[in-house]
């Protein structure tokens, strides 16, 4: 293809049109997110679909969440040991791992792993349903897709990410404990005692609020991109990729704001 042909084939879009599209997308996402919550108070409620999604999202993500936080806890202990040993303070590894995992790494890692696995899954599943007219069929058969498909996924992700984070936090501490005991020769009882005693209410509260926010982001972003799919199977692939990227970026950005907000509110 000649350079001229290539340039002429590029579709140029005016900044106004681009801004309009972005604002429209933001509006559509906001409506979807608000409806997904409002549907909790409207009938019918799809309890069976929620349970099924909880199994798929929660139980399905369990091994990778546990493994990722376990090894992150271990790596955190190793890295901390290098620095702390210079000051002869390796005994406080438990405190460092505990604070790091419970306040920050546990929720964020669980969120990122679940986003990678489930935002893509939701976007591809709903996207495929769009391109094969199954969503239109559902509406034609008298079912609201937001009630049937989106709300159960949002509820399931929020609830299951909360529990996954708790289990992940424990596995992160366990990973740190293995490193502390087996590689650094620290007393396991001392490690766990330090890890436990250093945690205060605000640490645990912060660590358990974040998964609720992240779970909401993961499910609404995945469903939004899935239901906005255009352009056949290629469109499904694009929606899947965009959903994962958007969910991960949002988790990382929102984490900063939630952390700051909770620090102000809790005075920590």
């Amino acid at each position: 293809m000649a350079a001229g042909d290539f340039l002429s084939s590029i579709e140029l879009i005016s900044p106004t049109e681009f801004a309009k599209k972005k604002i429209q997308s933001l509006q559509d996402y906001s409506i979807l997110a608000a409806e997904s919550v409002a549907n909790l108070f409207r009938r019918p409620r799809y309890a069976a679909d929620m349970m099924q999604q909880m199994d798929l999202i929660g139980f399905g993500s369990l091994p990778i969440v546990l493994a990722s936080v376990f090894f992150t806890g271990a790596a955190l202990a190793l890295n901390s040991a290098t620095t702390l040993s210079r000051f002869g303070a390796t005994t406080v590894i438990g405190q460092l791992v505990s604070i790091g995992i419970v306040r920050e790494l546990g929720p964020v890692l669980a969120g990122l792993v679940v986003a990678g696995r489930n935002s893509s899954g939701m976007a591809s599943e709903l996207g495929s349903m769009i391109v094969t007219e199954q969503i239109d069929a559902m509406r034609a058969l008298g079912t609201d897709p937001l009630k049937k498909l989106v709300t159960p996924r949002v509820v399931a992700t929020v609830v299951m990410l909360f529990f996954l984070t708790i289990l992940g936090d424990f596995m992160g501490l366990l990973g740190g404990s293995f490193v502390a005991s087996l590689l650094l020769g620290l007393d396991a009882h001392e490690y766990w005692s330090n890890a436990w005693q250093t945690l205060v209410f605000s640490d645990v509260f912060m660590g358990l609020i974040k998964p609720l926010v992240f779970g909401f982001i993961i499910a609404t972003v995945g469903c939004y991109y899935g239901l906005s799919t255009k352009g056949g199977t290629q469109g499904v692939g694009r929606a899947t990729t965009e959903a994962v990227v958007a969910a991960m970026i949002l988790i990382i950005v929102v984490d900063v704001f939630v952390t700051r907000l909770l620090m102000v509110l809790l005075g920590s």
Partner: protein
Amino acid sequence: MSTPTLPLDAPAAPGPPPAKDVIAFDNVAIAFEEKIVLDGISFRLPRGETKAIFGVAGSGKSTILKMALGLVKPDSGHIYTLGEEVTVMPEEHLFELRRKVGIVFQESALFDSLTVRDNVAYRLMEEAATSPKEIERRVREALRFVELENTVDLFPAELSGGMRRRVAIARAIITEPETILYDSPTGGLDPVTSTTIVELLIKQRDVSKTSSLLVTHRLQDAFTMATHYFDTKTNQMRLVPAGGRIEAPMSFLLLRDGKVIFDGNLEELVHSQDDYIREYIS
């Protein structure tokens, strides 16, 4: 091109259509990405009638069906389905209305994660007003109607294209809707399977007396429907004897460049002097 056969695009009288009409389009227009697809079309589907809609690919045939159910909103004009103006109804009210109208999508649109049983029973299970035993009885009855009773436990991926289309028909008729919308029910099927599907449409029309809109590329399907009736004694479709008429009225609607250029019965269609129509049906 010569003058269209019937002066159809004159603005219709404002207000709801007569009660005998199950679907009425009044000066409806829609454009996608600045391309005008339908440009002020008006037509009515009287109760008990089957109307076949023709037009080249991209002429807006499927969009008409989706707009009749409120799945797509027009840019202007009014659409009445079962006496309700769907163009102004909020989505939650449309769900109620849609329960009274059956639709068979172009590619069947069966839920691929559900079995044939659950696909056909979907609407009944959603309404949660029918006992599981009654649902099972009605699913089997609907599948028996399309001669696929032995497929209840299969998934859509295990069925052929023709079987999927028949399951979609079973799903559309299980609640005995007043009106059924067929979107290219024979599209992409071999001639033998197409004939089976057309026979089912005739059977549904003559046995249940439902009104329907039939979108199709295949003129012969609509001609077969206009010239055959279903004989319940032999369980087969039969050619209407010379001089006879089918009980359910059949009409034809032809789209061109976003406009309705013909809306009439078989006789008017075959005797049309319009060059485009003559070329289209030849």
